[in-house]
């Protein structure tokens, strides 16, 4: 059985370490991710201006692509794509006037009214596979890995698209537990990483990252677990700058949740593209016996 899957542009370039382990893992779990054909940019960020309908066209077009495949569910990996697609879907479902405007503008496509359900891969793991079943598939438990789940904003806010409790999310904690890791809760796990603000004020990138990383470190985290390429970029760059500013600051590996999934399912480091990660994960993975003797985080044959 295949799931209609929307990757997102960044996952095909900078964040291949988010996508490729997910594709490999889901195949191993028997729920293959089938990329929807002819997908385009998700819209990158959901437009909040009430009359700015042109920026809803991109996400809606992707939802139409899923509908054309006869699918009633669209799986996303990138937290930002998830947010943009799900909110656009909500708009198409609930606002008849805007729905008509958008549908008539896109006269080359079939009409759409929110028929496809947008879900995040974490929801598939929780609701369609289940934590118990997932833990039984684990071949290399991530024992003793103290990983702090970092949600960021877009999986949880606004409330109508949240995949979990807005105030007290546990989905990543449950996920990590199923993989055998030791999740580390910390109070800043849903604090904003700076999002696109870092483009208009790039000097602040480390100041957005500082409270998040300090909080995770002080609660004993050895690594941060992410779902979003933008969080990865901001926190990764931010901690590099912090390390430059303060000699005592310790950078930590940032993992995508899908990398830990693939690793725990025994798919090996080559499926994970750790070479694209921030915070040099190799020494931590070695320390936790998650890389065997001959294994390295470097890709075979170099980067493409």
């Amino acid at each position, binding site marked *: 059985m295949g799931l209609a899957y929307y*990757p997102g*542009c960044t996952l*095909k*370039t900078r964040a291949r370490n988010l996508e490729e382990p997910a594709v490999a893992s889901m195949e191993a779990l028997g729920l293959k991710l089938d990329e929807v054909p*002819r*997908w*385009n*940019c998700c*819209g*990158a960020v959901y437009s909040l201006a009430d009359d700015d309908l*042109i*920026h809803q*066209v*991109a996400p809606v*077009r992707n939802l139409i692509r899923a509908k054309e495949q006869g699918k009633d569910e669209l799986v996303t990996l990138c937290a930002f794509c998830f947010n943009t697609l799900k909110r656009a879907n909500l708009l198409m479902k609930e606002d008849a006037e805007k729905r008509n405007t958008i549908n008539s*503008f*896109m006269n*080359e496509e079939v009409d759409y009214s929110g028929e496809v359900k947008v879900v995040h891969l974490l929801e598939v793991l929780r609701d369609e596979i289940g934590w118990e079943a997932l833990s039984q598939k684990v071949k290399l438990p991530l024992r003793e890995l103290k990983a702090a789940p970092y949600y960021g904003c877009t999986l949880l806010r606004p409330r109508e698209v949240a995949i979990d409790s807005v105030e007290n999310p546990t989905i990543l904690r449950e996920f990590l537990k199923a993989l055998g890791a030791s999740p580390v809760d910390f109070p800043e796990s849903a604090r904003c990483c700076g999002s696109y603000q870092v483009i208009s004020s790039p000097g602040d990138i480390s100041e957005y990252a500082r409270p998040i990383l300090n909080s995770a470190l002080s609660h004993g985290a050895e690594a941060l677990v992410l779902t979003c390429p933008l969080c990865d970029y901001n926190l990764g760059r931010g901690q590099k700058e912090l390390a430059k500013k303060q000699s005592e600051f310790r950078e930590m590996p940032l993992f995508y949740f899908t990398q830990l999934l693939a690793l725990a399912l025994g798919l090996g480091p080559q499926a994970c593209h750790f070479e694209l990660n921030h915070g040099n994960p190799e020494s931590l993975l070695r320390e936790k016996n998650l890389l065997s003797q001959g294994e390295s985080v470097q890709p075979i044959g170099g980067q493409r």
Partner: protein
Amino acid sequence: MNTKQTKKKSAATAVKHRAKNPAATAVKEKRQIAARLIPIYIMGKRYEVPEGLTIMKAMEYAGYILIRGCGCRGGTCGACGTVYRKPGDYKLQVALACQKTVEPDMYIAQIPFFPANRALYDFAVLTAAPEEVFKLYPEMFRCVACNSCTKACPQGIEVMDAISALKQGNISEAAQLSFDCIQCGLCTSRCFGELAQYHMLQLARRIYGAKIVPRAEHLAEMVKAVNEGRYDRFLDELKQAKEDELKKLYQEREVEPMAAGEDWKPKDTRYL
């Protein structure tokens, strides 16, 4: 019966029109047997032109002398991008002026050139890394997937899909989807996000052709053989041949059949 009447009427109109249009008087005699005339509007001005002409021919018929916006006249150079509207239709239509025949009441304007920034790059040092294309054309990420570019393409290219592929770092897909592009620039003229699609996709095709598609090994071997002089002897023979002999060789040459298979060989294999 009706048709006859219309023809008569049109011919009368044609005479009247010709009087106003000195550029067309040279073909006065031929006009008597011309096709039915239909009204078109070129840049807002009404002209009556013979049915069946292309937009380009119709413009020339109306007296325009085209020194730009006109190239191959065969639908491949991309110089004659044209937009038009028909009464009662809210949608803008696009065409190549040398390919599209006139229709009654078309409102026509040519867009032979559309200003668009083309990035400067040293192609020899470019690699096939998508990030290099992103740096040259960062405006690519302003695309809102409105699909206006696709609707404006006279070649029927899925322009938006090609741009999406490029954004996803898939240069090969972008190159293949845009293979039929003739660089007319109509996509860019309609772009909400100010992208220069035709330049971006040309870069994709260049990178694809030069840096992604595997090199043909047999070509390198052949070039080496040529350089080493394997064929000089045959060329010398031709150079020394008399004119009559050359003509005879040409007329008697063996031509590869249209649907020849890959294993086809000429009867005379001396030159292989």
